[in-house]
């Protein structure tokens, strides 16, 4: 049933044997064992979690990927899939005792099917490349995570990535029509939205690599909207901005995006990219509307009026793509920009019901003052997705711990308000320990049933998403001695 109950052999010799077998099924140069080169893969976008992978492989086809997974099964070694490594929750953190499957050599756009409004791509194609392949035809791929120039569609599928425009258009899961996957035991299976029965496609998207490896993705293409209006509104306070958001949504308007930044985030963006937002703003709001020209014109006039009535002291409407980019520049640079005003920072990702935003922001303010830790707030205001940037000086003793405390307390606030510990960055290794704050043991055990159906041996990206996963076949509540997954180094116990 499982290889993890007994003593695990020392990884070295097993990996050496596995590496030789892998080299036999992969093209020359597609198996990396050189320690210096392995080190370049030691982390993803969450850089404070690091592990040098045992082996890195670069398959070029589905067949090669399946062969890699089967060899991993043969030797009982875990594997982790990685796209561009831009993830922010450590979902692609490698295993020192396992194989890192990098999809960067699977990056062909296989088919653009305009009449059927879809494209078929390999997992290593970047998010933006899909749109670029169809832009000339007036089409695009809707989900737009801020890393879209480099992040891969395979990674987007694993994380169910969103982006600023998911308020209107939804997430990766709403735009994937079919997947070809390699299951954790090495079978190649197609999950299709048109299949009858359980929506395994929907369950696979967002499973963070724990149910297998994506090798081919069929995505939905949308028509580029006829009109796009981008509005920048400056407010004296975040409360006024929050009121405007509520009034816009309450007015029956579904903007493509509503983004908000507070004074500290604006200060950082100004320092980094000189985005020239209105001086003296306590908050700026970016409201983007798109759709048929007639409808968009009506709706944007309405949104403008609402912003004024909510106290906006300056309003700018982008006259064209260049001005739109200028408005978005500050927002897009915000995460990196805080590096200009703080030596170190934590990017947090949590969700609250939109109407709870004002109260939660006030609570974050209080936490910040209490612990002497500054917090810059950047958020997808339309769907209550907060991205607090918790700033600290890593040279100051105890500051990192205080920042960590504030960051964790912010997640508690999200859960207390009926929200989520992650809206788009994923659970990964970073938040596995927070899962019990949001879910009961029964909830997590039930999710584990799905995991066990796909991956009974626990080889596909183990240690991610779930705190201390149960072994498949283990009876809940009965545990004696050390957990075998912990003992073998496959899981951490929190």
């Amino acid at each position, binding site marked *: 049933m499982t290889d993890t109950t007994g003593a695990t052999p020392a990884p070295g010799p097993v990996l050496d044997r596995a590496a030789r077998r892998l080299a036999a099924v992969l093209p020359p140069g597609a198996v990396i064992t050189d320690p210096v080169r392995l080190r370049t893969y030691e982390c993803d976008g969450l850089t404070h979690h690091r592990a040098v992978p045992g082996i890195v492989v670069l398959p070029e086809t589905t067949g090669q990927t399946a062969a890699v997974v089967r060899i991993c099964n043969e030797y009982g070694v875990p594997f982790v899939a990685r796209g561009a490594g831009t993830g922010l929750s450590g979902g692609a953190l490698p295993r020192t005792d396992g194989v890192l499957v990098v999809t960067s050599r699977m990056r062909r756009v296989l088919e653009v099917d305009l009449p059927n409004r879809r494209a078929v791509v390999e997992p290593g194609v970047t998010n933006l490349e899909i749109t670029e392949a169809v832009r000339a035809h007036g089409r695009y791929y809707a989900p737009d995570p801020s890393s879209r120039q480099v992040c891969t569609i395979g990674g987007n599928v694993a994380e169910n990535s969103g982006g600023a425009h998911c308020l209107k258009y939804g997430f990766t899961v709403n735009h994937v029509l079919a997947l070809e996957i390699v299951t954790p035991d090495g079978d190649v*299976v197609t999950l299709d939205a048109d299949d009858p*029965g359980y929506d395994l496609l929907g369950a696979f998207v967002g499973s963070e690599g724990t149910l297998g490896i994506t090798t081919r993705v069929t995505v939905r293409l949308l028509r580029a909207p006829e009109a796009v209006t981008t509005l920048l509104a400056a407010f004296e306070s975040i409360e006024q901005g929050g009121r405007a958001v509520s009034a816009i949504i309450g007015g029956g308007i579904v903007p493509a995006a509503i983004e908000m930044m507070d004074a500290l985030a604006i200060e950082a963006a100004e320092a980094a990219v000189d985005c020239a937002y209105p001086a003296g703003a306590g908050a700026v709001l970016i409201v983007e509307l798109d759709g048929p020209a007639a409808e968009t014109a009506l709706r944007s006039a309405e949104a403008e009026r609402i912003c004024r009535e909510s106290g906006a002291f300056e309003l700018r409407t982008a006259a064209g793509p260049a001005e739109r980019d200028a408005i978005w520049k500050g927002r897009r640079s915000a995460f990196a920009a805080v590096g200009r005003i703080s030596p170190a920072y934590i990017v947090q990702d949590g*969700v609250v019901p939109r109407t709870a935003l004002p109260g939660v922001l006030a609570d974050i303010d209080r936490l910040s003052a209490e612990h002497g830790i500054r917090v810059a707030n950047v958020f997808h205001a339309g769907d209550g997705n907060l991205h607090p940037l918790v700033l600290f000086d890593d040279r100051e003793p105890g500051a990192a711990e205080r920042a960590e405390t504030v960051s964790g307390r912010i997640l508690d606030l999200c859960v207390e308000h009926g929200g989520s510990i992650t809206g788009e960055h994923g659970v990964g290794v970073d938040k596995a320990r927070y899962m019990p704050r949001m879910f009961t043991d029964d909830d997590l055990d039930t999710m584990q049933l799905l995991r066990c159906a796909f991956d009974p041996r626990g080889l596909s990206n183990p240690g991610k998403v779930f705190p201390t996963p149960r072994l498949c076949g283990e009876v809940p509540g009965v545990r004696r001695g050390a957990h075998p997954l912990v003992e073998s180094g496959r899981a951490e116990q929190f």
Partner: protein
Amino acid sequence: MGAPHGGGPRGAGAPGAADAPAALEALRGTGAEIRDAGPGDAVAGVSPRWVALPGDTEQVAALMRVCASLDLAAVPTGGGTRLHWGRPPERCDLLVGTRRLNRILEHASGDLVVRVQAGTAVEDLAGVLAAAGQELALDVPSGGRTVGGVLATAAAGPRRLRYGTARDLLIGITVVLADGTVARSGGKVVKNVAGYDLGKLFTGSYGTLGIITEAAFRLHPAAPARCWTTVRLPGPESWADPAGVVGPAALATALAASQTEPSAVELDWSAPSGAVTVCALFEGPAADGRARAVQDLTGGHGPGEVTGEAPSWWGAIPGGGAPDEVLLELRVPPASADRALRAVAARGLPARVRGSLASAVLHVALPARTGGPEFAAFVSGVRDDVRPLGGRLTVLAAPRELARRVDPWGPVGALPLMRRVKERFDPGRRMSPGRLAEGL
């Protein structure tokens, strides 16, 4: 019970007829209302022994624990409007009705989110939401359907083109598993990637994984205006040969790609030779102008008629919903819709075809009197024609003497994985066993 028992021998302690009073007492001990089943309670022809009407999630869990201890098989039901759909369960002791689970738990109108108990009637929910100027954009046919039933059968209506289907609007779910475990996933915020999305798994599960007791949905503001543009096309014999006319697929492709952004493009057709009606819905503040703007996209079929009311057939599943209805679902890539319709016409049967043309998800109703060999030839003939297009034909409902002649699904690559999921969620095969497909 006439249905064969699947999944190996039944466990020790299974109640024979002599144990029925003890089982009944145990079921009553859960606090749920229990009655003997009647003729109207049959599930695809299989009669349960009892019907339970629990009043809350905890009573559902208690019922499932009793079923687990006595090895009783259970089938959940909502409004009971689709009990004749799907395959007969391998066994069915208890029908668990959710109609008393009919409370709207939370309507956070400012958040555009609603949490409801699964037995809430779709119409009742729509009424409450409409009072706040909002809607659940799942225009499933009316007539007593419940939220839980809509999820379990993955039902969707015309506006799937714009808003997606139930799985796209569901943001949180509470389920009771076969062993009585109560589990939740998702929550009440739209943006949420914490943990596996069990809601997706239960959408379309036909009660085979557990019982849905609560659901949370994202809502949309109700459109201030709606307009429909209707175009009539001649039958399939005239489409798109060099001298022919633009067929429905080209029309739908043009509409779906147009900047007028229709929310739905539907088709209604009496096969094999009737005229085809194509109707597009426009919603929003400029709906009327957009409905008129598509008139030059109608490919020479006249300007189209713009109305403020939907045609009478809009959103209704053809076939009428009688227990002996013969209903199939035909899916193809949208650009191949003409060829799919021709595949239906080629069989010569008087079928009613209706559904989403722009998504090419169509219901096909055959007359109840259709003979077994004719039915089998229809299914295999249409499948042979649509398979090369990447299409599929699924039998949703058919009397047993027809259903037994065909594989209701045709080949599904993910079926072995689905069976592994079923084995994990319901190892004792007590939840609607076999109702969805063999082994599920």
